[in-house]
């Protein structure tokens, strides 16, 4: 029965769903990593965005406007991180930890002030983004059930993989981001301001992460609950790292993560110890990380032997 469940289109459908928030954050991590900065504040940015997504969409009574406002806010947090890291020379990890901490406290604080409870924002009447079915694809037997009837943002996240890929690899700014991340001096020797580029990259990273946060409370769920990001920002960091900090690589790893998380849900149908099943995605990540790093290390050694 479990095998049936895994082969069913619903499994892939669930996989895509679980992948979406991680994917956004993974893309965010990749853009930041490409400019040479580890953005560990993704978790905090997503958490803020999950809350503000609800608040903004309730304020505008529009999911789209809510999303746009949230993206602006995500960009602002990215800017804040950049300001501390680039201008005030704060250690990027510690700055991110501080932002995450502030997100933890501030989201509860704001929720409490607005709705009187610490747990859920369901008293705020927000407008989530809808799920949509795609006319033609919907009717293709298997594929239709996998791809169709997902949330708008799931499609957006898939499109974003392409967009970020094109951005990083086909557009001038992306080229500069990659150059700065790899060799600051080289970039500066041709007159590029590396700081400016890093500022821009972190803002973009913040915007992408905020879309992941918005999805949690305004797409997948229809309200905010405290701590609802549940470590997805950190997982995304791992996914991006394992994907070689490329959008496509990051996508495949987040898909793997989404799949193992969907699988852990399916395995619960089989009445197995759920604690062990819940470990699956993390064990997958840690083993994957070891293998990936090992291969990369060997490759580097070879390169320096030969080169």
């Amino acid at each position: 029965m479990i095998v049936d469940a895994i082969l069913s289109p619903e499994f892939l459908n669930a996989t895509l769903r679980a992948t979406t928030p991680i994917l956004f954050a993974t893309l965010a991590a990749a853009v930041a990593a490409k400019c040479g900065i580890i953005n560990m504040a993704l978790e905090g940015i997503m958490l803020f965005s999950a809350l503000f997504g609800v608040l903004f969409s309730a304020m505008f009574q529009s999911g789209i406007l809510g999303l746009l406002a949230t993206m602006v806010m995500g960009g602002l947090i990215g800017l804040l991180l950049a300001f501390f890291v680039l201008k005030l020379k704060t250690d990027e990890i510690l700055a991110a930890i501080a932002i995450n901490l502030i997100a933890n406290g501030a989201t509860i604080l704001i929720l409490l002030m607005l709705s009187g409870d610490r747990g859920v924002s369901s008293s705020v009447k927000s407008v989530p983004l809808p799920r949509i079915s795609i006319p033609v694809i919907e009717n293709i037997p298997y594929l239709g059930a996998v791809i169709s009837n997902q949330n708008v943002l799931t499609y957006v996240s898939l499109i974003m993989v392409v967009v970020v890929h094109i951005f990083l690899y086909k557009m001038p700014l992306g080229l500069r981001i990659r150059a700065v991340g790899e060799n600051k001096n080289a970039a500066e020797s041709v007159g590029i301001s590396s700081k400016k580029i890093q500022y821009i990259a972190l803002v973009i990273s913040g915007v992408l992460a905020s879309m992941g946060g918005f999805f949690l409370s305004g797409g997948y769920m229809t309200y905010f609950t405290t701590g609802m990001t549940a470590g997805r920002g950190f997982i995304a960091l791992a996914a991006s790292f394992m994907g070689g900090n490329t959008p496509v690589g990051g996508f495949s790893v987040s898909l793997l993560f989404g799949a193992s998380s969907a699988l852990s849900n399916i395995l619960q149908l089989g009445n197995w110890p759920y604690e062990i099943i819940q470990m699956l995605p993390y064990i997958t990540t840690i083993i994957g990380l070891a293998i990936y790093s090992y291969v990369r290390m060997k490759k580097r050694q070879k390169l320096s032997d030969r080169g």
Partner: protein
Amino acid sequence: MSHNVLEMKNIMKIYPNGIVAVEDVTLELQKGEIHALLGENGAGKSTLMKVLFGLESPEQGQIFLNGEEIQLKSPLEAIKKGIGMVHQHFMLVSSLTVAENIVLGIEPKKSIFVDMNKAIDISKELAKKYNFDIDVTQRVEELPVGIKQKVEILKALYRGADILILDEPTAVLTPQETEELFVQLKKLKELGHTLIFISHKLDEIKSICDRATIMKSGKSKGTYKVSEISTNEMSKLMVGRDVVMTFDKKPLSLKETALKVRNLIVEGTTGVVRVDDLSFDVKQGEIFGIAGVEGNGQGHLVEALTGLTKKYCGDILIFDQNISNKNINEIRKLKVSHIPEDRMTLGCAANMNIMDNLLSNQYQSSEYSGRFMLKLKKIEERVNKLIKEYLIKCKSYKQNVGMLSGGNIQKVVVAREFSTEPKIIIANQPTRGIDVGAASFIRQRIIEFRDAGCAIVLISADLNEVFELSDRLAVMYKGKFSGVFTDVKKLTEEELGKYMLGIKKDEVLEGIIYE
């Protein structure tokens, strides 16, 4: 008569650490010439060029381009004015392709995208125009250094460089690659570009340059037509000593052989042979000087001797023990001390205090620690003693080393390395970038150790130093010894300059090995 495209007048540059790198230098470039800039290591050549490329702002002086005064605050401005620079160290993004590196920052666009095809076409055309044989779609990390050098040049040319600065472009090239580069530089000249060419190799300068400006200790020694000056005269101007300091040295008294090197071959990270089949001996009681222009393999030799690299073949014996399987700690236990070339990266931990920095090679000795604990009282005594003995200027040993001046940091390093009763000292550029007082203090110490029977290998690009200190002197050129002199006093500067610059080379090296 051709007119001056560029004039740098009375340029002075003082670094924040107080070093006067360039002192009142004037440089005039004529249109379409290849202008050599030569001088010893540390003469200020790179600094002068960085000023010209807008990377460093001068304390004083003016720059005129085609007779008009210009201000260069950033590389971007220099690029806009048609000045390009190929740096002493590569400035390339390895994972990008050649074409991407070339267009970086001023990419050709198709709507909002980089027009990659156009970038490739441009790069190809550029390469073709200047006769460079490069596959522009390859990633830079896959290229040999010779090609990388060419990419650097293309980068500058793409930015419309009329004046192209080449800071030691041949330092990393093989003779064939150098030949090829020269063909292309000549072509550039034909096309009307003006080139500044920095090199330590006089034959190179002879073969392609029109005029040469010689620098020495931050000052200009004049500009000469290359055809009217002999290599001997050039090398004399370059290396001529300014102050002759003399040190009291006891007569040489050699003891056992401390260091025995046989057929040593060391490869660099890029796979190029850096030390090429060297054999030599050093005995206790002598200073074995190794002179040479930087980048001729001295660094790699030191790495092998001190255990920092194990990528070598041949034998290194320290008191008859082969060290190929010994780690750094075990080598140090054989009483080997090492003054590293770069005090900030290898020689100290800038954010730790003087005591911690003076301790790193001694904390394991039973005098200063037990099984687990450090004997802090004893250590403190020792540290205070060393601070006094080596005249380290500081408030107390609790001060972080990074807060000290360069000379005092070097004294900390030297004090540490000399305080372990070493039997062998590998001193690599022990007085680089520090003031005269501190330098002569350190040199005096080195002599005291020699007199006390220590074997010393002194690697230095500073001719004053090797002349004054060495009992025996070898000159390193392209990974080999080009000459060995057992009677240093008889050696003239011109002679040494010729060996250093590869003008002269001895096939048979007498006195390098003790039988």
